[in-house]
Structures are given as structure tokens and as C-alpha cells.
């Protein structure tokens, strides 16, 4: 299994630093969320981890080894770590869905036949067989997102970095997306998702990384999202299951030492137990 990390990372654009002396280790789980307010540096962090953006100081670590930016080493990194950008139109260059998905596998050096097999595999995994015969310019934003993810999945990465994969999706689209992520996880892929949806983060992920003010906090999602100081520093809010139980505890309707709920079902179970 591949683990990513960063040591003393500093990244900035022309107007100042976004990440400052950031040291994290993405270990202890395969479902990660990167949380933070708008402009806190989620996209920046994922880009750095993917090797697309070079930090001004510090290192990206893969299995504890610092990432080198020589073309060969970078290509090796990209075989293992793939990032899907927030805007699928930044990634889809062909009007033909299958042709676009075949791009990554061909760049891995696969033969055309093997590349086509990877296209079939990715389409099945993302359930987009019905989109294959339509041009990209006829697809909706959510459908394009699926195609963009298929393009990365076809390369069979071990770590998949997704920038806001659920933004702009309807409730059913979000459920579908989470189903896709479950299937990826079953295949042994570590998924790192940037989002500012704290409810989704609590329900889906086991580990969380919160960025804000240049630095980061890492921990179990429930623990991180229960910590009001972390949440307010990052300009987030408490997920509703945690908020609700906190209030019910204050009102004496629930015991204070119960298990923290993550979903609607968990909350209902807590109330049933009483």
C-alpha cells in the first residue's frame, strides 16, 4: 500500500503563502477528506501531493521517500497517484468519451488493446456505459465529472485525489459517487477527497485533514469534527449529527458518554437505545 505525506511543506502563489511549514502523514485509513473553507488551500494541497505543483520549500513523501521532480520520477509518481480536478473540462480534451479515457492507459505504455480493456473496466466501475456513445459536449456537469474520474481510474492508481467530486451533484448523484468510491476502495485504492461538506465528510470518511491558516490538523474524522476549536479556526461548522447529539446531551435527553453518530441511521439508533 502506498502512503503519502508531506514534510515542512511551503506553497505559495505570487500573493503570499497558502501552506506554511505543513507536515502531515496520510496513514491510518483509506477514506480521507481534506476539509477547509474556500481559499484555505485544499486544491493547492492536492496539487502538491499529486506532483503537479512544486512546493517552494519542503517535500512530498511517498512511502516515506521524498518526491523528486525529475521527469522519470514524476512519471513514476503519477502511475501511483492520480488527481481529478474540480472542473472536468480542465481534463477532458477529446469529444469522444472512450478516446479520452484511453489517454492515460496509453501513456502508461499499454498496448491499444490493453488500453481499450482498461477503458471498458473504468466505464463499468463508474457505470457510464450509457454515456460512451455521446459527445462530451452533450454531457451534464455531473456526467463529465464521472468521465474525468474514469480517465484517472483507468490508470489504476493506488491513491486517487479527488477535488470536490460531489460539488454540483444532486443527492442521487452524490450517492452514486459514493458508491463509486466504495467500489474503488474495495479494489484497494486510497481515496482522498477535498470538500467543504462536513456532513458528507463525517458520513463517508474515517480520516480527516483540516487545512486553514497555512497549517493542518490530521486525525479521525469524528474526533476532528467534534473539536469545536478546530472547526471554528477552519471556518467550518459542526456536522448536524454531532450538533444534534450535543444539544440532546445538553438537554439531558442522551447520556454524555455515548458513541458519536455519523449518519441519520446512527442518530436514530442512539435515540432508540434510550
Amino acid at each position: 500500500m502506498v502512503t503519502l505525506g508531506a514534510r515542512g511543506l511551503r506553497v505559495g502563489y505570487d500573493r503570499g503563502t497558502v501552506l506554511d511549514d505543513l507536515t502531515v502523514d496520510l496513514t491510518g485509513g483509506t477514506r480521507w477528506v481534506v476539509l477547509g473553507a474556500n481559499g484555505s488551500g485544499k486544491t493547492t494541497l492536492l496539487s502538491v501531493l499529486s506532483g503537479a505543483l512544486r512546493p517552494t520549500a519542503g517535500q512530498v513523501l511517498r512511502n516515506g521517500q521524498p518526491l523528486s521532480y525529475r521527469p522519470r520520477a514524476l512519471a513514476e509518481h503519477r502511475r501511483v497517484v492520480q488527481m481529478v480536478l474540480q472542473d472536468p473540462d480542465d481534463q477532458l480534451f477529446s469529444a469522444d468519451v472512450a478516446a479520452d479515457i484511453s489517454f492515460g492507459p496509453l501513456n502508461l505504455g499499454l498496448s491499444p488493446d490493453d488500453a481499450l480493456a482498461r477503458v471498458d473496466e473504468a466505464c463499468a466501475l463508474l457505470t457510464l456505459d450509457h454515456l460512451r456513445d455521446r459527445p462530451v459536449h452533450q454531457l451534464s456537469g455531473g456526467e463529465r465529472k464521472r468521465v474525468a474520474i474514469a480517465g484517472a481510474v483507468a490508470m489504476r492508481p493506488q491513491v486517487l485525489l479527488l477535488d470536490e467530486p460531489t460539488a454540483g451533484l444532486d443527492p442521487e448523484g452524490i450517492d452514486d459517487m459514493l458508491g463509486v468510491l466504495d467500489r474503488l476502495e474495495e479494489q484497494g485504492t486510497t481515496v482522498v477527497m477535498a470538500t467543504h461538506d462536513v456532513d458528507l465528510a463525517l458520513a463517508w470518511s474515517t480520516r480527516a485533514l483540516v487545512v486553514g491558516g497555512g497549517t493542518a490538523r490530521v486525525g479521525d474524522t469524528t474526533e476532528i469534527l467534534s473539536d469545536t476549536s478546530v472547526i471554528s479556526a477552519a471556518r467550518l461548522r459542526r456536522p448536524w449529527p454531532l450538533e444534534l447529539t450535543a444539544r440532546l446531551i445538553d438537554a439531558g435527553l442522551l447520556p454524555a458518554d455515548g458513541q458519536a453518530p455519523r449518519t441519520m441511521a446512527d442518530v436514530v439508533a442512539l435515540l432508540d437505545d434510550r
Partner: protein
Amino acid sequence: MHQPALDRAAWASRWRTRNVGDKALLSLGLLIVAVSAPVWPGGVAAGAMAVACALVWARVPVGIWARAVAAPTVFIAVGVLAVAISLDTSRSVDAVWRTGPIAITTPGLVRAAELVGRGFAGMTAVVLLAATTPMVDLLTGLRRLRIPDELIEVAALTYRMLFLFAATAGSLHRAQAARLGTTTLSGRFQTAGRVASRVFVLAWDRARRLEAGLAGRGYTGALRTVTPPRPHSMPFLIAATLLVTATAVLGWFPW
């Protein structure tokens, strides 16, 4: 989003999954008959055959087909006018109709009719291919003809980007119109200018971001892709060859 009728028809075509070479054989065969056989009966036969193939065999919707041929038809009509009308200051030739130095003569009319026949027949033969084959498939087909990959990649990328920029320009324009930017003529000019300059900047930005996005997928200078092969269809090839041969025989037959 705005999408030209012909492009929409091509993607939805019953013949979408046919081998491009098969379709090209039919379309180019008819095109060759249209331009090289005598206009009567060859050109007319080729044109009629191309229209029938498009509307009956490939079942291109009539409305879309009509819209696709409308623009070239106007083009042919304007060209024909210039051929039909001759300038005759000496009033020496017999004219069917004249006003001042402008005359329409019988030979002029015959040449004009020939031009209409050939032009229309050739155009319908090309539309047959265009209405059943999306641009990306045509480009993939060209690859087989040993056209350099770089050219095909640029053309395919341009095709994809055009729709992106058209969508951007469309939404920018609607946004300005919604804020009443297009109620006066000068406002309309200003809006068009703003949209154009904004799209230019966005195109630049898009290119930069796309390059970064592709780099992450292992881009090293070549946009190589593969698509599932489309097998030849023997029945289709035989039918197409028969149709083209029949048209050619009819076209050169000394009536």
C-alpha cells in the same frame, strides 16, 4: 447548450457505429459520379441517390438535413447568378431577357443549370457523410490514411474546445443580456466586444489549465488515444458498391 444540427445528427445517427471507410466509400463514390459524369443524367442521379441514402437509408431527420444543406444551397445559388447573367454592352447576342447591359442568354442558362446540378449533387453526397459521422470519427478515419498525428490531434482538440468556448460565449452573452446589456444597439456592440475579449482570455486560461490537467495524466507532447475498432459490414459494402455502380452506369449511359 448550442450545438449545430449537423453535429447533433451525426452523433445520433443510425450509422454512427458503421465503419467510417464504408460510409466514405458510398459518399465519395457518389461525389465522384456527381462531379465527373454528365450533369444529365449523371449529376442528377447522383444527387437523387445521395438524398435518398441520407433520408431513407440512414434516416437523417428531414428538418436537420434541410438545415444542413440550406447554407451551401444559398452559396450555390449566388454563384449560379453570376454565371447565368452576362454583361453584354454591344447587344450582339440573342438574350432571353435583358435590361441595359445585363443579359441572360440561353448558353448562360445551360451553364448555370449544369452548375446547380453538379454543385447540389456534390454537396448532398458530402452531407450524407457529415450527417452520419461525427467529426472525431472522421479524424480517426484520417489517421488510417497516414495523415500526421499532430494535425489530427490539433483538429480534434479544436473541435472539443470550440464547443467549450461556444458554451462560454453563450452564457456570458446571456448573463449580460439578463443585466440589460443588449437593449440598445450600442449596448449590443459593447456586449459583443466584452464577450469576445473575455472568451479570448478564458481560452488562454483554459489552455494553460488543460495542459496542467493533461500533465497529471502523463501527457508528454502527444495526445494519443484509441477507440474501439468499427468492423466493416460486408452487406453494407456490397449495397454501397452496387448503388454507386448503378448511379455511374446510369450517369454515363448515352440516352
